[in-house]
């Protein structure tokens, strides 16, 4: 199973915002907050297809996410703010009160077919 180390950054997306206001229990919110954006090169390297599910692991947890691609830096993955991202973020705030929402190391791993 191909795997790759990378850097995860949580972001806002228009779809996440709109779905959140429709209802956090809505299928749209759940789906959008579990959708990871990767660069086309990372996509190619991992042999991914649009909409494929992968496993993300950090020092703090694991989560299953669905992939979409978009122009961006290689090795940096973007996940909308929400419960899926929160399962991966560590508790350390380094004395600031703010956990590392904008950047921590993760491993991305494709699942068995």
């Amino acid at each position, binding site marked *: 199973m191909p795997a790759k180390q990378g850097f995860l950054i949580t972001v806002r997306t228009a779809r996440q915002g709109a779905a959140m206001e429709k*209802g956090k229990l809505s299928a749209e919110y759940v789906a959008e907050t579990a959708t990871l954006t990767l660069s086309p090169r990372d996509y190619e390297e991992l042999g991914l297809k649009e909409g494929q599910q992968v496993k993300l692991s950090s020092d703090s947890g694991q989560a299953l996410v669905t992939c979409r691609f978009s122009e961006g830096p290689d090795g940096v993955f973007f996940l909308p703010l929400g419960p899926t991202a929160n399962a991966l973020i560590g508790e350390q705030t380094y004395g*600031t009160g*703010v956990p590392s929402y904008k950047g921590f190391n993760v491993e991305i791993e494709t699942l068995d077919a």
Partner: protein
Amino acid sequence: MPVTIHKDIVCTFCGALCDDLEMHVENNKVIDVKNVCGIGRNKALHGDNDKPECRVYGERATLEEAYDASARMLAQARSPLVYGFSSTVAEANRVGVELAEILRGGLDNCSSYCHGPGVLARQHVGLPTCTLGEAKNRADLVVFWGANPMESHMRHFSRYSVQAKGMYTPLGRKDRKMAVVDVRPTPSSKNADLFFQVTPGSDYEIATVLRALVLEMPLPTLTDDSLVGGVPLARWRELVELIKQCKYCVVFFGIGLTQSQGKDLNVEQLIRLVSDCNRYTRVYAMPMRGHANVNGNNQVFVWQTGYPLAISFNRGYPRFNPGEFSVIDMLNRGDVDAAIIVATDPAAHLPYTAVDALKKIPTIVLDPVNSLTTEWANVVIPVATSGLSAAGTYYRMDNVPIRLRKIIDCEWPTDLEVLQNIKERVLNAKDH
């Protein structure tokens, strides 16, 4: 039923607080909204619809029972936390502060983990800032740093910044230059004249080098090709020249700065850069505040306690220490033994460790709609929705207070009424 049209209604989603919405109400329900973004539309159409049930420990309860249970939980706690407030009115914030003081508890708001570092930076170096009206009327250069308003503050460009037509910017976009600093191309950066795609976590380094360029200090170890934050120095010189030549520049910064490596130090250095630029021209900075009244939280908390966030009353007077009294740190350390959550949804926004800590203690939540926290909180109190079924004051990202009107009726009380009721009961419990 006849349709009533309400004009100049305030959107209560983001800190831009667009106040030109037109809401169509039929049978006490918002059925259509005009002059609104996609997120604001959903907020208006769904913000008062999906009310949670009033519950105590999973059982349906009356409001009186919920108030009694809440007061009991809070009065019996040794270290209660009063937290949230980013989507409720300033008037309710004030009673929240009072409740925390009576309880000798912790007090924090959602800026704690979003723009809080920018608030701390302001305490250290101040903030040369302006209003959104000034940005609209005067700015011929706008810079967005770590912000993507096309997806988070969707009407910011058209109402206040990039495309807005103002007194000295009558042609809107044609009268302005726009620069974006971000770690990836975004819908916002696609509108920019200059886009700087930077390495994540390099904001402090970039702001430091920009300060040196602005102040014309020697940079002997760097050439024009040297990469600073992944971008050649020659391109940063372009930005500095653009700033020096403009008449009025506003740097809007987002949580790309406050939540990445460096946090408050990033904002401090950016503000110092902005101050330095004022030797040449008029340059201001403004945080792109997220939740609609998160700025109001900081305002009210400062009036009432002297501090904007991360406060503890456990010695009977307010003390302030981010990292110690911040909501996430308090929960992760297990320092909280009961919590009242107002107008936010920690289960959707906090790391799971903090959410797990909340699930282990008595938790009371006030929310106008079902959320991920109302699913499991011990006491759930449905409330009216600020800006739809509750009136009050919100603070825009530029510190301008804006009055929200009530346009529909709601069978449930406002956050303010609920907090006053719980406060009275806590006072009675403490007196006996």
